[in-house]
């Protein structure tokens, strides 16, 4: 239940503005890959192209190929909706649906797509997903309460449960802990460690310690200056990125000399 991602010669544009230039990267299945880099270097933009969520932003488009186990996401006739059921996403700020209960939030991906599901199967899916998101014990007695009543960290784990209930191959996380306090962050990081047993996880983070803690491989993105496109500078095992990077820019960044 997890697929690898191979990106070939990918350019991302906003209108005529080249935001990310010429990315080539191979992300292994069942691993955690972290994207780090200074603000505005295009790492979040690039992450969104991995499940075509960038298309929601007006004017955004890509050139190049993203292969999910060999299938091109941008091939002719590919439906972005199908892509997104295979590649799930968790956002910066926890965003449970305010009109739905905890249970309905977990089932959102199924119910919103109008798939028929028996009550027993639904219950099993809710429990499995919440257990998978390390949230089951905290909410099992109040599944019918609104999801917005949970704490920030619980909400974020609810969003992860919602994402894995769709049974995706890959989970993308866009700075999932930046709105959380340290304790909630720890809970989510523990969860990421468990998720990689089943899923391919890609995480964008501003926090280098977090990248070092959770990821197997790390990609460093950088930007030459305002108005210039972001680029992938270096992609290697996390330990080598943080301990003996091959690029000067990477070394400057991870040692805190800039950014």
């Amino acid at each position, binding site marked *: 239940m997890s697929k690898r991602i191979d990106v070939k010669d990918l350019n991302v544009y906003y209108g005529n503005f080249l935001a990310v230039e010429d990315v080539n990267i191979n992300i292994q299945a069942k691993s955690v890959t972290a994207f780090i880099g200074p603000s505005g270097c295009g790492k979040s933009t690039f992450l969104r192209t991995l499940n075509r969520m960038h298309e929601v932003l007006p004017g955004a488009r890509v050139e190049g190929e993203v292969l*999910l186990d060999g299938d*091109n*996401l941008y091939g*002719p*006739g590919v*439906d972005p909706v*199908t892509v997104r059921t*295979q590649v799930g996403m968790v956002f910066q700020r926890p965003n449970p649906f305010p009109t739905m209960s905890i249970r309905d939030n977990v089932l959102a991906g199924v119910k919103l*797509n109008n798939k028929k599901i028996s009550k027993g199967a639904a219950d099993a899916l809710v429990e499995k997903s919440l257990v998978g998101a390390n949230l089951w014990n905290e909410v099992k007695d109040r599944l019918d309460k609104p999801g917005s009543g949970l704490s920030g960290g619980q909400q974020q784990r609810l969003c992860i449960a919602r994402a894995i209930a769709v049974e995706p191959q890959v989970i993308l996380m866009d700075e999932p802990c930046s709105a959380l306090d340290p304790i909630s962050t720890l809970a989510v990081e523990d969860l990421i460690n468990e998720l990689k047993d089943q899923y391919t996880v890609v995480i964008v983070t501003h926090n280098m310690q977090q990248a070092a803690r959770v990821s197997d491989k790390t990609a460093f993105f950088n930007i030459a200056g305002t108005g210039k496109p972001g680029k992938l500078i270096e992609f290697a095992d996390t330990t080598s990125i943080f301990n003996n990077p091959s690029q000067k820019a990477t070394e400057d960044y991870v040692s805190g000399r800039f950014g």
Partner: protein
Amino acid sequence: MTTNSLTTSQGAGRAGDKVFSGAAMAAGCLILAVLFGVALFLVVQAIPALTAPAADIQGGHGFFAYIAPIVVGTLIAAVIALVIATPVAIGVALFISHYAPRRLAAGLGYVVDLLAAIPSVVYGAWGAAFLAKEISPAYDWLATYLGWIPIFEGPASATGKTILTAGIVLSVMVLPIITSLSREIFLQTPKLHEEAALALGATRWEMIKMAVLPFGRPGIISAIMLGLGRALGETMAVALVLSSGVLTASLIQSGNQTIAAEIALNFPEASGLKVNTLIAAGLVLFVITLGVNMIARWIITRHKEFSGAN
């Protein structure tokens, strides 16, 4: 790999997207069509009146001679309404935005909105039954002491059912429109400007003069224009309050007529060419209010682009 597993579509989903976005766009286009239709049908039904021989039109001197006095009457009523409503409305807006205790402000805004909620026919009935009676002594006074001014020339109407009364009722009806728009603009005044003025030692009024009013000027102007649009097109306040007649300079005698009231009073019993004449009058009113509203909206849009607020 030759087949892409991602192309296997989920059946009816895509069609649903197309149908839904198509319906949404169709609804939007329908609105444009309706507005176009308003203009088209009014023109089509008005043409017989515009092309008919002058003698067949009511009054016997053609459509222009028929419409001119009531256009002037409409303008007179609207101007009276604005002259009264504008200062009061701006005062009320300032009161709610900058003077009232913050906790009361929302409630007071609601009270002013209640003014807008009262149906026009009730205002008309109130104007005819209460205001006209109560205000006629004041008209006598005006005729006696200020009668040398043409607009207050006597003898004053004994019933009080004059264009001035109608204008006052109209002013009550446009007041909430001007108030709510100005209030919104006043509340958008950049806090920094206000605080800068206060930090310089300005009194509250000086702060309003320095920061709030200059910022809100385009908003106030367009609010007044929208109020004008409403005053021009309002029917009941005039139809019930004014005892209509020929165009008269004096505001405190009976006489004058507005387009909207002319239509309302005559349309139900009209037939034949008279119907076309009234629809033509409606077309004139439509064109006038359309122009006024478009100018008002244009001012608002231009202001939005320049203020950088949105």
